[in-house]
């Protein structure tokens, strides 16, 4: 009976909502988040710029320098991870942050030195608590306190 099922769910709550931004889900180690570039490992092969499907990574050369280095435009990036997967020197890696917000268009572009920064979620910077996702047979997903 449909009404009985409805009443059963009314009484026993099994919600799996995460109250963002008081709580932030701690993403797994393989999550494809914002990209970070390491300048000391880069060999300027420009394979990342060649394979990017959205033309988000382009190579920039300062006048007078010999090597060109990549810069990224987050307005175009689709976080597919091709650049990370193709870099032969492991200079690009995914961080575990995804919820960064930009306020102006110019903030989207990160060229050479600016590209070499670590990303932290703004909700965490404002004091959110971390939760981890676990599977549960009764409730589907439960969120337990993270580290």
């Amino acid at each position, binding site marked *: 009976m*449909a*009404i009985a099922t*409805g009443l059963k*769910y*009314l009484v026993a*709550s*099994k*919600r*799996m*909502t995460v109250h963002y931004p008081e709580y932030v889900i701690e993403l797994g180690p393989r999550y494809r988040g914002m990209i970070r570039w390491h300048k000391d490992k880069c060999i300027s092969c420009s394979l990342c710029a060649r394979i990017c499907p959205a033309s988000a990574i382009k190579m920039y050369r300062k006048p007078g320098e010999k090597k060109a280095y990549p810069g990224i435009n987050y307005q175009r990036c689709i976080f597919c991870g091709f650049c990370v997967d193709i870099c032969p020197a492991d200079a690009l890696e995914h961080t575990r942050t995804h919820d960064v917000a930009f306020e102006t268009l110019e903030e989207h572009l990160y060229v050479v030195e600016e590209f070499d920064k670590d990303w932290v979620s703004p909700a965490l910077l404002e004091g959110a608590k971390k939760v981890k996702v676990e599977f549960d047979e009764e409730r589907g997903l439960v969120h337990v306190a993270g580290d």
Partner: protein
Amino acid sequence: MWELIDVIIRLLLSPPVFAPLIYPGLVTVLIILVSLIWLGRKIAAKVQLRYGPYYIAKRLGGAPQLIADAIRFMFQEVIVPRTADKIPYLLAPALAMTLGLVPVVFIPVAPGFAGIVTSYSLPLALALSSLLPITVILMAWSANNKFTIQGGVREAFMVIAYEIPLFVAALSMGLAYGTLSLEEIVEKQVLVPGAVLNPLAAFVFYVSMLMSAGKLPFDIVEGEQEIVAGPFTEYSGILYGLVMGASYAQLYVLSMIFTEVFLAGWHPFIGSLGALYLPLGGLALFVKAYLVLAFSVFLRSVYGRYRLDYALRIGWERLFPLSVLALFLSLGLRVVGVV
């Protein structure tokens, strides 16, 4: 000077002023609107594995959400389409709310305490509440829009389907108790509530009540998916708030009548609390009516929407014969002498 204030307070607390104004009148309707819609959203959210209104007042669970909605409606621009018929377009929502609230004056909350004390309160209240669909059709026609006309036609169909079982079920209870006054009907239910006496009539009245107020599974008139918002498509701002409130007001009036006719009204607290101040005895009535309303709103999370011809078929093929059977059951009970 103090006598003047005494006279004013006595005037305020007298039945013809207290009943329509405070309980079961305007103030109660306001409380019901603000809390019932919130309760409905929270219940639906709980069944659907989510939180309903939450952020507005975290510790209260989002209770002032409706007040925020009402304030928003006040500030929203009221758009009047150029091709609409202006005077009916602007008048009809106010008329709907008024007609939805007028039957309240006939409903007694304690022995002898009603806006207008009459011995025909049951058919009068029901007859007045059946005037509301005319305003809906007026809204639909004046907005001059294909979707609204479809909604108005659906409302016309539904009215004919549910009004007859509603009246016959209510009148069958009147027949069983031998009186048409709501006060006396409640007085006769001291031992046995009306729902136990004539469950057929209770069921028919409840389903007709849902059809009348347009609650799921019968929200065909404001069928959001197919005809945008039915007759209410073109309304925005405070007019929209009024029409949405009108349907809840009608549900409230009908559920008060349901509680008084079938659920023993204001018993059992009338003796104790009634001695203090007569309308306080009607607290049990309010609580029971609220439970009936909460259940009607809960049904929203369980059912989808019926197709129009199926709903009409329910009205004519199932509810109408059942209501006639209820009539005969009442007759039988009366003849046998149970009542």
